[in-house]
């Protein structure tokens, strides 16, 4: 139970620090792995496992609030199971997937609580009480934001890896294979959310061009960023010039 308390507290503290920058950096496996390794007395294993988990979770990022798995919870529990429970590194990595996917849904479970807190903010706003508004923001993030996650971590460590491991061992192989397949689909969630935010049918052509440049020419994300930025610049100035001409009948030119 001491271990459970330590890991849970570390989970909360690191999240709190990371979140103080809206950073999503300390909570990545590659950083969080060593930290949990440190508090559990085996930094090296933490580092290595962090690297292994990062390799898997590299593409699982929170876009539009839509990460399909919780890499941070998975890292916390898996590092603990390996160091304390003595399961192998590989088994730990295999475990990380169902854990991460299940953990993602804590956010959904605590939604009613969040909905309740939102109403407080609205009250302060209506009263023009910006000081209380600010204060609540602090309370929210420190106390409520990861309350349940922390409890889950505590329970997960307390109940122990054995229970979890034995559970996954009885699963037929196509289940784990299926989770891998699902993993390949997950990034579509974030992209889908982004699309609902920015898609306009008139601009479909640009999306297709971005796709072709990567799929057919393998131009890489940075290359596509440069091309996209350049294209945006070009169309911005075309548009700006058009607007300038329209508003001033004198027909002055931007370029």
């Amino acid at each position, binding site marked *: 139970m001491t271990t459970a308390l330590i890991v849970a507290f570390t989970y909360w503290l690191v999240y709190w620090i990371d979140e*103080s*920058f*809206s*950073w999503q950096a300390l909570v990545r496996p590659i950083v969080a792995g060593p930290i949990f390794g440190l508090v559990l007395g085996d930094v090296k294993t933490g580092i290595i496992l*962090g690297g*292994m988990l*990062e390799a898997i979770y*590299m*593409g699982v*990022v929170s876009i*539009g*609030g839509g990460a399909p798995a919780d890499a941070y919870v998975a890292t916390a529990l898996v590092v603990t199971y390996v160091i304390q429970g003595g399961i192998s590194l590989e088994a730990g990595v295999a475990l990380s997937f169902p854990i991460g*996917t299940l953990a*993602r*849904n804590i956010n*959904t479970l605590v939604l009613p609580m969040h909905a309740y807190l939102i109403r407080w*903010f609205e009250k*302060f*706003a*209506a009263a*023009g009480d*910006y000081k209380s*508004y600010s204060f*609540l*923001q*602090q309370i*929210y*993030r420190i106390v409520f*934001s990861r309350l349940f996650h922390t409890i889950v971590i505590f329970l997960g460590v307390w109940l122990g890896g054995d229970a979890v491991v034995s559970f996954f061992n009885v699963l037929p192989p*196509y289940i784990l294979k*299926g989770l*891998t*397949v*699902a993993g*390949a*689909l997950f990034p579509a*969630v*974030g*992209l*889908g*959310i*982004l*699309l609902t*935010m*920015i898609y306009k049918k008139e*601009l479909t052509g*640009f*999306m297709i061009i971005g*796709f072709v440049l*990567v*799929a057919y020419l393998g131009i890489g*994300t940075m290359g596509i960023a440069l091309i*996209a930025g350049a*294209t945006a*610049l070009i*169309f*911005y100035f075309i*548009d*700006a010039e058009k*607007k300038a001409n329209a508003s001033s009948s004198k027909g002055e030119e931007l370029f």
Partner: protein
Amino acid sequence: MTQVVKGLTPQEKKTLFRITMRSNLMNGSMQAIKRQAMGFTYALIPALADLYKGDKKKMAEALQRHDTFINTHASFGAFLLGLVYALEKQKAEGKPVSSEMITNIKASLMGPLAGIGDSIFHITLRVIGAGIGINFALEGNIVGALIFLLIYGGTFLAIKYPLLKAGYTLGTNYLKDLFEKGLVQSLTKAASILGLMMVGGLVSSLMNVTTPLAIKFGETSVALQTMLDQIVPEALSIITVFVVYKLIKRKVSITMIAFGMIVFGIAMSFLKIM
């Protein structure tokens, strides 16, 4: 876009700095309903305090104006904070800046900025940082984590203040242009172009949905994936994104979609289709 405001008053500088600090908590009270509504408002409060301190009613209006759904990249969102600060200032000074105008600008720019920010940080820099760092990590070398923090985390922090200032400068110096010439629209469109091109690219670089199905006739067999690749590579990835997009549009929840993917994945794997 990134001209330096020459005559920034000490007061403005101080406020900009305080907004930057507070913008660190942008994701602070994130939830699925109003997302960063509170984080954004919280970050803007130094500006609102300056402008509406004496006037409870205007302060309440401003707080309520911003306490609404917003979702953008935590670091690129700083640009929007700067722009909105400038707008609020003009409004407080009696310029014809309506509440709707401010809301519209927020609504139209948050998506594109998210697209750009997510692509650069969540995807490009994170992957580069992790890619380099992982090699060290696998050898048990803590330097991996530090490299990751530097490449991804360092730029993430470093970019906030400049973006905030750029947004404020644009809002202050070019407001007249922005509205009269419809440049906000142009800006939004350009940002959408940027975002959409990157999303198009990400479909291919981020995803890799394939099928092991093969059609066998006698001795020869044709892999379905090979045929698909010859027609449109990553066709299955595109279809997946499109289906998810349609589901979200029809208000299916993210959790439902994620669970559906797991069920679907297990079923496909059971049937040996994927």
